[in-house]
């Protein structure tokens, strides 16, 4: 079995689905012969044709709006937006059109659309190339929001996303794009949207996270004394959230720390805290802790590592929660 990076696994999934289903088309800025700014679509235009891996005008709203048209007319578009910082212009198309067509036509118009977006900080990128807006789209009804952080999960979840009859935002943590390789089967497999994954079992405390933060959490856990046992959950899908997985774990451990890159206030940590107290109130030994980005603008790269929750801050959060 080949060992692939996250970028290669996503590329393989796209290639696989384009071969399997002729309705699948990719559209976005530079996705054609150039293979996209992160080379995720590398080689796909040469193999499947420029008309199926279509370079578009530089217009995020246009990309999503046109993709909605493709989707309602029976295609299976996969739209790439180059960076999460440029989702703003497409917000109206995503939230007011893609997310609503099924509901407002009572199921007679549907939008099977996948929107791929590199997300998050930590790669020394230009301004507005490092945000984490997943909570915004989770708060918007009618969308599914996915953020895998391993090559294996990325392929399986992307195939699920493309085959999903509803719009899915597929966030790709860019810090993980080429950070490691793992074995990815060449054959067809899917990972259901909505299922979290327990990465490591533990009894003392539950850490809930997703995206690149998973690896910071792993490091933080690694730095803890050997007699501390932490259960680490990678949500993989943010919306719909796998509350069963979280609740089962916290009912066992009694303590929970949520880690994400996005700002704290009204972020997903708040939502997960609320869910945990609803589902695990009598099991809780400590308040749910949030270790997150600050409620500031995402700093430019000289200070981005100060902003992002790292192993040290996560470790402190875990230690405080354990000591409560």
């Amino acid at each position, binding site marked *: 079995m080949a060992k692939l990076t996250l970028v290669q696994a996503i590329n393989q999934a796209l290639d696989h689905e384009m071969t399997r289903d002729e309705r699948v*088309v990719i559209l976005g800025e530079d996705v054609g012969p150039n293979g996209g700014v992160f080379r995720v679509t590398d080689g796909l235009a040469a193999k499947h044709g420029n*008309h*199926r891996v*279509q370079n*578009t*005008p530089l*217009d995020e*709203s*246009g990309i*999503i*709006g*046109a*993709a*909605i*048209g*493709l*989707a*309602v*007319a*029976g*295609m299976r*578009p996969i739209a790439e937006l180059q960076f999460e910082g440029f989702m703003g*212009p497409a917000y*109206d*198309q995503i939230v*007011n*059109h893609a997310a609503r*067509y*099924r*509901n*407002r*036509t*009572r*199921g*007679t*118009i*549907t939008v099977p659309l996948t929107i791929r977006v590199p997300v998050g900080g930590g790669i020394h990128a230009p301004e507005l190339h490092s945000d984490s807006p997943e909570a915004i789209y989770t708060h918007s*009804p*009618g969308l*599914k929001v996915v953020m895998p952080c391993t090559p294996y999960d990325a392929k399986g979840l992307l195939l699920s996303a493309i085959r*999903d*009859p*509803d719009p899915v935002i597929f966030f790709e943590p860019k810090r993980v794009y080429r950070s490691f390789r793992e074995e990815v089967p060449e054959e067809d497999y899917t990972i259901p949207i*909505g299922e979290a994954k327990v990465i490591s079992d533990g009894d003392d405390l539950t850490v809930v996270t997703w995206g690149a933060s998973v690896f910071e959490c792993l490091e933080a856990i690694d730095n803890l004394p050997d007699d501390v046992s932490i259960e680490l959950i990678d949500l993989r899908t943010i919306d*719909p*959230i796998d*509350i069963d997985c979280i*609740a089962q774990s916290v009912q066992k451990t009694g303590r929970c720390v949520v880690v994400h890159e996005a700002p704290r206030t009204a972020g997903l940590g708040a939502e997960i805290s*609320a869910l945990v*107290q*609803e*589902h695990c*109130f*009598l099991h809780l030994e400590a308040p749910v802790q949030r270790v997150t980005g600050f409620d500031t603008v995402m700093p430019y790269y000289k200070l981005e590592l100060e902003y992002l929750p790292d192993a040290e801050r996560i470790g402190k959060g875990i230690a405080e929660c354990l000591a409560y």
Partner: protein
Amino acid sequence: MPRETIYEAKIEYLQILDEDGNLDKKLAKGSLSDEQVLELYEQMWIYRQFDEIAFKLQRSGRMGTYPQNKGQEANAAGSALAMVRGTDWVVPSYRENLAMHMHGMPYHHILMHWMGDERGNMIPDGVKMLPLSVPIGTHMLHAAGIGWAMKIRGEEAAAITYFGDGATSEGDFHGAMNFASVMQAPVIFFCQNNHWAISVPTDQQMNSQTVAQKALAYDMPTIRVDGNDIFAVYLAVKEARERAVSGGGPSFIEGLTYRLGDHTTADDARRYRDADEVEAWAEKDPLIRTRKYLVSKDLWDDEKQELLGERATKIVGEIVKAAEGVREPATAEFFDSMFAELPRDLAEQRDSMRTSSIGINPGQVGLSAQPERV
């Protein structure tokens, strides 16, 4: 070194039937047959009754806010007839109800929509249409995408999308025009220039002499037509469709017309426009000139008009009855069509009709296992 003109363009204006009902026979070549004129006249006339009754429904508290289409029927009717029902897609705004009807959207659905019921947006089987779009100027991108899909599949079909003059100020208008142009998608952009975007007149909306010229930037064939002239509208759309289905890409049509009513029933246009202006445009009403033409050709008389009136009253009465007689929507309906398959959390919200937490996990606090429906 050259310094010379490298691009020049002209905008055509087309009028075939003037406001007195006079037809330019030469220009009318390839446009409507007598039979089609009769059909469109009847459609427009019935629509006008529908529009009046819809207005009254709102005034009498039987319907919510409604945007009248009065005065703009020729744009809707002429363009709808030039497209192929069930083959071409229609991507409307909200002032072309007649075009939606002619392409298969039942009238009572349109009333249901403005009565606050999403079931009015349900697209019947075999009808190729998106629901009317309330946000201004953002839906034309969907037509660009639909046209692009048609092109990918090699279909002999086109998409038509409608919008107002105000919508052409939106960024997505230009995005849609650019996308369709770059992809050479079979899309017809139909601008209903009715002179007013709520209270803002066209000359405050743009500093362009015509709306049609905006298409020049996208190298798109473009024309301004008298939008109260069914012959001109039909011919322009027919030519645009022929171009679209034979690989000629998108076209732009500006149908010059006038919003005879208020923006919506929540608006009072007397606050911002002169009665004289409205009066002048009322004389250019598409229904009046079409009738004059039919009478001049001995195709219409008072007796026929009376019969049409009776028929329209009956038809509109049945439409209202159908809209008001539809069963009340079930509460669950606003949940059920959120996704193809409802996520569990949403299913729980639907079944319990609550979002408060105690009782969600009843095992914890000894409450009944089944949350009570409130």
